[in-house]
């Protein structure tokens, strides 16, 4: 458990909760990143600019924060380009079919006491655990 960061992770979690609460109170929206990104491609009139601005804020956070704390963006695991491409594709398609990701289902959905989101979270946590088991125990951690 040498890499366990309970205090920093709790503080980061509170910040995520504050951002999600702000988007609800001001915009009336669920802060689900996959849903916000997916909606950009649906091009509903008047429903695109806030999505793009939120995603730009997310990019800007990485750009600015990494200038002072580049170590916060270290990958720390061994992943080949094909593995990253397959992972990205499955995350992109899976979140659109399943209607949400860690933020939309895992944080906002469970925060809303939604049964659907709780089931979704159990589902993606279970397959993530199985995949990590396979990558670590079968392929020795490098895929």
């Amino acid at each position, binding site marked *: 458990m040498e890499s366990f*960061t309970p205090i920093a992770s709790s503080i980061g979690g509170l910040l995520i909760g504050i951002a999600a609460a702000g988007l609800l109170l001001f915009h009336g929206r669920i802060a689900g990143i996959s849903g916000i990104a997916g909606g950009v491609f649906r091009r509903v009139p008047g429903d695109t600019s806030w999505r793009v601005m939120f995603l730009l*804020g997310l990019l800007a956070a990485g750009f600015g924060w990494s200038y002072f704390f580049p170590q916060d963006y270290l*990958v720390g695991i061994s992943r080949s380009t094909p593995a990253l491409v397959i992972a990205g594709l*499955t995350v992109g398609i899976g979140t659109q079919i399943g209607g949400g*990701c860690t933020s939309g289902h895992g944080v906002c959905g469970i925060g809303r006491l939604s049964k659907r989101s709780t089931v979704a979270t159990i589902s993606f946590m279970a397959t993530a655990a199985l995949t990590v088991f396979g990558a670590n125990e079968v392929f020795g951690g490098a895929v």
Partner: protein
Amino acid sequence: MKVKVGAFLGGLVFGIGLAVAGMTQPAKIIGFFDFFGNYDPSLAFVMGGAILVYAPVYRWAVRTWQRPIWAPAFSLPTRKDIDARLVMGSAIFGVGWGLGGYCPGPALTSVGAGSQEAFTFGAAMLVGVGGYQLFVRLRESRTGGPADAQAAAMIDG
């Protein structure tokens, strides 16, 4: 204007929260699911901290607010049924999450940080997101589709 600036600030705080929480380091995600190695429970503290703030605010807002500050109405998920798409789609997402160590938020903010791995993952992810949504739009235009495209795009989050 304020709506756009507000959304930008929301993304900014969200992204900083992800970095502070350690969620932009795929090793910490893998560590959460690695029950047979060097276990790292941090992800549970991130989700717990976020839900601790969000749950009471949500409960208060939907009970006592007529509408959000900058919009005419709340846009909230309405579906309650558990269907195969929810379970299977989420299962597919989990495979990619466990394989790459990134979920959508951390991937995008790490692209902003200039991470090569996040860029590869993020480009493929956007192809998946965009490709799926374009496929849905094509099918809807062929069949007449749902009138409320916005609701279809935002089923849960």
